[in-house]
């Protein structure tokens, strides 16, 4: 030990340790733009000293690199990624629905939309008919306006169905990507378990984290750390996607024209309880929001069509016969918007006259339906305004929500990326800073709320504590 040779050995170890530190630093710099790369730090450790004849001799120093990985923040980022991906997919679907009905930030009223214009034109044509019931051209105008109205319902319904079809295709595409990623993760699990069962696996773990992050964009996940540095992944509903070195493929099946998702060991149908990620947002839009809009649209078409039919059947047509249904409709509201059509091409089929008189008594009542409560107490215009208002409000809320989720994701990513160490002192400082940032922002919110509430007399104020 205390010889020249041993001194040289110690110096050599120190040089090697310094070289390792330089390597780690250059590796960090080289990978600063590598997706998923986790910064490494150098840990210097003195080699055990040796005592000989009462004297202690140092044996030098070694260096090792460890990744600065914080799994709590990693998981928070992943969970937020799932939430944001869901809100993004949902927002995107609702924007498509807005487009169908011609809603945009410049839309000033429901009556200026395609459906609103068609409804107004139809009732205007009936008003014109009441003034000139025997004129064939005026009667033809009513049929043309009725066809335009039915066409507007058909078109909106078909476009809603197309959105649903495109969401089905998105489900199939997402599932394919999920399977590719779970296969990769299972393979990485196997490599990590084999190479680093008790320690951070560095680049391999980075790759696994990156794959899990990509998977989080597609579907909500639960992540469970297992022995030997393994990870088990399940869907938010508990269906296993990856367990150790084995992945369990997700599949799709067609049920009643809709793509359903099968997952887990037994391939159970998880469609109704799958949340998070793009799939969660797509399913939320396809299975909850779109059917609700479709039902409203069907009820609307059925309500207007039925009211016009009922009134036309009370009158006398241009040939002197009792009036018949002007619109063909299904027996119930279901599917009415897609199926509504004008039942005749004969202008004389419009029953303008009331029984026992030869003028336009019934045409007046038909025209008056525009201000009658044909939709459960609401007029057609009121119902349309309420329906479109709901779509606009849902889409706007989805946009706001997605912006907030995106901002939260940015925040968590910032926190994760700025991680400088996992010491308790550093952690406490980070937490304090986070807490103060939150308190300041909460104060801004509360004062803004107060300024607005007092000015608008909104009544109840929301307080964020």
């Amino acid at each position: 030990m205390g010889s020249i040779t041993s001194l040289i050995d110690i110096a050599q170890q120190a040089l090697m340790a310094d070289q390792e530190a330089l390597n780690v630093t250059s590796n960090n710099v080289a990978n600063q733009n590598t997706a998923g790369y986790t910064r490494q730090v150098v840990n210097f450790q003195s080699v055990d000293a040796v005592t000989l004849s009462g004297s202690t001799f140092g044996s030098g120093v070694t260096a090792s690199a460890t990744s600065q990985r914080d799994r709590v923040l990693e998981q928070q980022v992943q969970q937020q990624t799932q939430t944001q991906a869901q809100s993004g997919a949902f927002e995107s679907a609702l924007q498509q629905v807005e487009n169908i009905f011609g809603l945009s930030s410049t839309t000033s009223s429901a009556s200026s939309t395609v459906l609103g214009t068609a409804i107004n034109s139809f009732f205007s044509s009936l008003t014109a008919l009441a003034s000139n019931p025997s004129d064939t051209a005026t009667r033809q105008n009513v049929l043309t306006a009725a066809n335009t109205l039915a066409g507007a319902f058909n078109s909106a319904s078909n476009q809603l169905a197309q959105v649903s079809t495109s969401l089905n295709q998105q489900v199939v595409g997402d599932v394919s990507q999920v399977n590719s990623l779970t296969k990769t993760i299972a393979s990485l699990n196997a490599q990590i378990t084999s190479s680093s069962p008790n320690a951070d696996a560095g680049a391999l773990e980075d790759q696994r984290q990156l794959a899990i992050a990509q998977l989080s964009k597609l579907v909500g996940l639960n992540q469970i750390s297992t022995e030997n540095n393994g990870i088990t992944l399940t869907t938010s509903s508990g269906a296993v996607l990856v367990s150790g070195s084995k992945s369990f493929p997700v599949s799709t099946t067609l049920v009643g024209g809709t793509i359903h998702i099968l997952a887990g060991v037994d391939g159970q149908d998880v469609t109704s309880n799958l949340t998070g990620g793009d799939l969660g947002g797509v399913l939320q839009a396809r299975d909850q929001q779109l059917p609700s809009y479709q039902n409203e649209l069907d009820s609307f078409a059925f309500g207007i069509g039925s009211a016009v039919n009922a009134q036309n059947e009370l009158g006398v047509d241009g040939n002197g016969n009792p009036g018949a249904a002007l619109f063909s409709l299904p027996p119930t509201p279901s599917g009415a918007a897609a199926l509504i059509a004008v039942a005749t091409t004969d202008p004389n089929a419009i029953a303008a006259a009331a029984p026992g008189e030869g003028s336009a008594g019934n045409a007046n009542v038909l025209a008056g339906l525009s201000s009658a409560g044909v939709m459960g107490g609401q007029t057609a215009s009121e119902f349309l305004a309420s329906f479109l208002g709901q779509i606009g409000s849902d889409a706007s809320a989805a946009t706001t929500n997605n912006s907030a989720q995106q901002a939260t994701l940015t925040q968590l990513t910032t926190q994760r990326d700025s991680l400088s160490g996992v010491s308790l002192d550093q952690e406490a400082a980070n937490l304090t800073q986070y807490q103060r940032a939150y308190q300041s922002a909460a104060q801004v919110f509360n004062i803004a709320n107060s300024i607005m509430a007092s000015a608008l007399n909104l009544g109840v104020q929301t307080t964020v504590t």
Partner: protein
Amino acid sequence: MMINQTLIDILDETVEALSNLDLEKLNALERRIVLLAESNSNFARDNIGLILPKKRQLEIMLQNCHVNLDALTRLHARNMRNQWAQ
């Protein structure tokens, strides 16, 4: 004087600063809005459609922050972070 646009700007900047955890900027924004509240300026209903979504956005972010902070504080208090970070 109408303060709508100022309030919109402050809310926008707060969301951005909170996203980036920019404490200095947040403290400055806090001081700005306190001054604004003390200025007795009027808030008009005119562009309420613009400002409400921004207020809602900040509210959702704060709710998310609250949940995240709770989780981190709980783990820190129980000194469990080291186990997680192994």
